[in-house]
């Protein structure tokens, strides 16, 4: 995955709080293969019958400004795939659900926590505006105004370097092996096999 440090694109507002993962991508689309692209499923049910849906009104927008607790609900990474495959590079909201935010960063999508996001969302209304995001300074510039968002160092590093966690972790295989041996000695029951095929319910 390629890293990035500055993004310029059009921002639109999705004036909703608690945008959950079932709205971002309804479950019925999740058996699709990623190779076919998930962008077409983004907000499928919210968009249907809504001619004024922000991402349809402003095609090509790449920054989404939304209400608090964006991405709450399931751990489905497909929600992030749908956003990324639809061309979204950053979501700006006052807060994010923990699992969603982690999934986003793992796919190069910035979850930018900005306390004023809802005010920004209201100002933008149904319009689009040019936005610039700088990860190094953690700033969003929109309509001539700069806003500093919260960006933990670990996320900044991952987004800018495009790091893959498996590669990072595999540099520590010796430590993992030593930990495993100690775990096996101290808590052997972790590896315990069932002693028979008996079945118990309860």
């Amino acid at each position: 995955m390629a890293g990035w440090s500055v993004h310029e694109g059009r921002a639109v507002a999705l004036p909703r709080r608690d945008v959950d993962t079932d709205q971002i991508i309804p479950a019925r689309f999740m058996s699709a293969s990623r190779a076919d692209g998930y962008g077409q499923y983004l907000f499928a049910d919210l968009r249907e019958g809504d001619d004024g849906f922000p991402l349809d009104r402003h095609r090509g927008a790449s920054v989404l400004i939304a209400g608090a607790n964006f991405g709450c609900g399931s751990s489905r990474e497909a929600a992030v795939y749908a956003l990324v495959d639809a061309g979204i590079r950053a979501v700006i909201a006052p807060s994010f659900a923990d699992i969603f935010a982690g999934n986003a960063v793992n796919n190069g999508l910035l979850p930018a926590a900005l306390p004023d996001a809802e005010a920004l969302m209201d100002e933008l209304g149904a319009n689009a505006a040019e936005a610039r995001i700088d990860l190094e300074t953690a700033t969003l510039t929109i309509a001539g105004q700069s806003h500093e968002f919260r960006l933990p160092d670990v996320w900044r590093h991952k987004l800018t370097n495009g790091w893959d966690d498996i590669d990072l972790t595999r540099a520590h295989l010796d430590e993992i092996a030593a930990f495993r041996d100690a775990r096996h000695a101290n808590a052997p029951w972790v590896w315990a096999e069932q002693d028979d095929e008996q079945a118990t319910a309860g």
Partner: protein
Amino acid sequence: MSRTLLDKLWDAHEVRRDPDGTSLLWVDRHLVHEGSHHAFAKLAERGLDVAEPGLTFGVADHYAPTRRRDRIEDPAIAKMLERLETNTSRHGIRLFGLNDPRQGIVHVLGPEQGLTLPGLSINCGDSHTSTHGAFGALAFGIGATEVAHVLATQTVRAQKPKSMRILVKGALGAGVSAKDIALHWIAELGTSGATGHAVEYAGDAIEALSMEGRMTLCNLSIEGGARFGMVAPDDTTLAYVKGRPFAPKGAAWDRAVAAWRALPSDPDATFDKEVTIDAARIAPTVTWGTTPEQAAPITGTVPDPDALPGGKAEAARSALDYMGLTAGQPLQDVAIDQVFLGSCTNARIEDLRAAATILRGRRARVPGVVSPGSMLVRAAAEAEGLDRVFTEAGLEWVGAGCSMCVGMNGDIVAPGKRCASSTNRNFRGRQGKGARTHLMSPVMVAAAAVTGRLTDARELMEAKA
């Protein structure tokens, strides 16, 4: 220094910590399901093997048909199940597949088989993995990239969450259950009330809960934003675990118990956030909106959005529009079209027994589906005659799986239809496009089935007494 249960579990699994604060945690149990196919594909792209197939377990649940398993008509569903079989067999992972008599929802099956034990770290690509915290385990849901990471390294990268304790003091009233504790605290604190935190539930009302009740409560932690929910292990925990197929036996059991006894938070441990709830104040609770925080006591009314603060007003207006409800309407006047009793939240044997106490000798006025959490729960229920209680009431008794909680297997609620449901999410379209979901406990689902409207189950319990 005194430590919390979270501290002890975290320390026991931390392989290393990076300067930026990221911990690399060892994973004792990795549970995979049909949805894990993205992660297996990532592994294949890199030509990597599964690091610890013996600590990895596969379960067919999200797409599991609840009827006619011998002939799956939807090719997309058949493909999802086949991919799970292929991926687990290729990597030597034990699979509780569709035709295994132990098959069930991963968060029901794990504890039932003794795969879930106190003191373990448990990960699964499912947000309701918090369920397993009920045993005093470090259990949290992860995304597909993280699932691939666990498969490849048997570790997960995570930032240690802040600690939060929810103390529930006193005794729950009759007809009030763990589901109501959860809906109550989420309504009070909001769906992001515990974001960034690991919740430990404590207090005499929690100690009095069965393991099934504790699992329901920990399961719903994520609906309040907490990726982790946990309860310290005690005698109730040990009694549940002992003798389970994968639980330690003999001398290993004694050694494990000694370790588990040291897990509870130290008496003087402090938490980053603490909330106290009076159990006696919790009523049977139902949701009226499209997030789990939009909930109220069944004795109440649909709230007036104008009376709600700030951003909650617009969210409530939008939710009432979707739900087809009017502000001020008594909740007990809301007519329903169907019921669903199932899911990783409330489909264990105790849940079925509770619902049956209401339904025994009564008829349901609306159609409904009862999907036990596992095929072993199903067998146990049938041995007690619970299946006949449900079918004689007019409800359909089907197989185990995630079923109508998420609708991936084709069990859905039709557009515009209103379902009283023992599940975990009332999101728009969760149970099917346009479906209207009201979350509630198993006894409340049973009561709604009997009257055809949202109902205070306590009234039906009294009528029987």
